């Protein structure tokens, strides 16, 4: 009896601190945001209840929709372009000799450990129109017509920032996928090879289907990571030209802190939280639902 009690006690002791801290620092802050979004608030004082006015007025502004387009563009880039590239890279790492494998893994991790500030600053230099890396390369191979001011051109700005983001995290995702590949029993491959399958067939029929758990994990991490996309934009373009490279998080902070409209800023936050929940629900529900077993 005494032992049972002590086990119960220990569960409480182990779980309570985290539960308490999560409630205080993750969940509780959402409540004042919800309250604020219904008020005209300048960050220091409440100027009156306005109901859903903040919601209607943020949804009427064009910046709101521009920022959504940009955020989802980044999500699309990292999921539709980034993940397949990571997958190819992971499959490639898998067939190397151990020594090269170690090299590729380190090279792949490297960009991900650098600070966003470091990465963004350097890429700003690459995109510089007069002497930057990209325009220099284009000029030296005679494609002068393609040179442009990448970060101030409204057509290229988001793609350029997206490329930087891709560069930073493709390797990390590749490593996650590769670690998954390693757990697939080798005798599956041997059986397939005896049956005369080629490398491509092995990848598409065995490796990828068996990798669903890891893929789901990587998909969740990278889509939510892109939803929170902010720092690269802040350092590389400060949202410009105009509001054309703002993401939702950027727009939220800009509205709250730079224009002192906390009511509207928190309204954006509430709308965005709902979107995040819907997306993660969709991933949980529809991606990799059934386990593949041989």
């Amino acid at each position, binding site marked *: 009896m005494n*032992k049972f009690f*002590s086990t*119960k006690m*220990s*569960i409480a002791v*182990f*779980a309570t*601190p*985290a539960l308490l801290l*999560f409630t205080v*620092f*993750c969940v*509780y*802050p*959402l*409540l*004042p*945001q919800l309250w604020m979004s219904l008020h005209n608030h300048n960050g220091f004082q409440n100027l009156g209840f306005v109901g859903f006015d903040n919601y209607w007025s943020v949804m009427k502004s064009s910046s709101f929709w521009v920022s959504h387009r940009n955020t989802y563009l980044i999500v699309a880039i990292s999921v539709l372009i980034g993940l397949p590239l990571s997958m190819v890279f992971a499959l490639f790492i898998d067939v190397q000799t151990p020594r090269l494998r170690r090299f*590729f*893994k*380190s*090279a*792949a991790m*490297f*960009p991900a450990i*650098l*600070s*966003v*500030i*470091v990465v963004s*600053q*350097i890429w700003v*230099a*690459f995109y*510089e129109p007069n*002497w930057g*890396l990209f325009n*220099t390369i284009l000029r030296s191979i005679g494609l002068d017509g393609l040179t442009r001011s990448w970060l101030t051109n409204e057509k290229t700005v988001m793609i350029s920032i997206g490329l930087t983001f891709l560069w930073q995290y493709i390797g990390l995702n590749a*490593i*996650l996928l590769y*670690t*998954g590949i390693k757990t697939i029993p080798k005798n599956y491959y041997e059986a397939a090879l005896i049956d005369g399958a080629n490398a491509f067939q092995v990848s598409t029929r065995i490796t990828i289907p068996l990798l669903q*758990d*890891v893929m*789901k*994990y990587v998909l969740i991490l990278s889509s*939510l990571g892109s939803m*929170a996309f902010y*720092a690269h934009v*802040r*350092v590389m373009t400060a949202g410009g030209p105009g509001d054309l490279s703002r993401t939702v*998080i950027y727009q939220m902070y800009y509205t*709250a*802190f730079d224009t002192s409209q*906390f009511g509207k*800023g928190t309204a954006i*936050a509430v709308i*965005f939280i709902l979107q*995040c*929940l819907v997306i993660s629900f969709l991933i949980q529900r529809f991606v990799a639902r059934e386990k593949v077993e041989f």
Partner: protein
Amino acid sequence: MKVVKWIFIALVTAVSLFPFYVMIMMSTYYSENIFKGLPLSPSDYLTENLMTVFKTDFIRVYANSLTVSFAAGILGVLTSTLIGYAVAKFNFKLKSFLNYFIIITMMVPAQVGLIGYIIEMRHMGFGNTLMPVILIWSAWSFGAFFMVQYIRDTVPTEILECARIDGASEPRILFGIAMPLIKPGIATLSTLVFLWSWNNYLLPLVTINNAKSFTLPVFISTLGIVHRTDYGARMAALAMATLPVLIIFLLGSRTFIKGITAGAVKG
């Protein structure tokens, strides 16, 4: 075939390391000379740039960043490990609730709750201190999620049961038996908190207005703004700020890479 392979290796190396190389090169230039072309070979202005950096509050800022990352690491790993152990290895009424709670908090990026968090910090009297940047890691849902998975997969329940039958107390079971088994997971998690809190930009940017409590990313992004944007000095500062991350990475990359997918891979 061999040639293709080596070309590919060279390409990967260039793509992943080139920006880092450029940063080091830039830090050896006089700021105004950087803009005459992409610097590919070193210049002679490194010492001056370092002097410029050290004339500022760089050392204090560096100490701030180290304080934040170590405190965040200890707090984050401790709370994550405790709740991870409780959820993974005990059966109790709230278990599945706790599991969902962790997953849902992980699904909402912390950035969207920051306005409320900042106001809460102000009310607690922590505005303009390092506390907001540290405390956020004590409620680190990814860490908790990771630990639940990791402990579930690596610690056999039978061993814990045996110890319990032998009369070992719960804290002893955790620290004496479970801990040694989950050391690699703890190493991975510590590396992650260190990296992420060290590189964190948004949170210190919006919570800390007092230059005394600046951390490296915020400090560097304001460096040289007073009279002119000193890119040379800024790059030198960035290079130095990258150093601890680099050391940790070189020392621990093997364990780190091994542990990182533990949450996803069920072996």
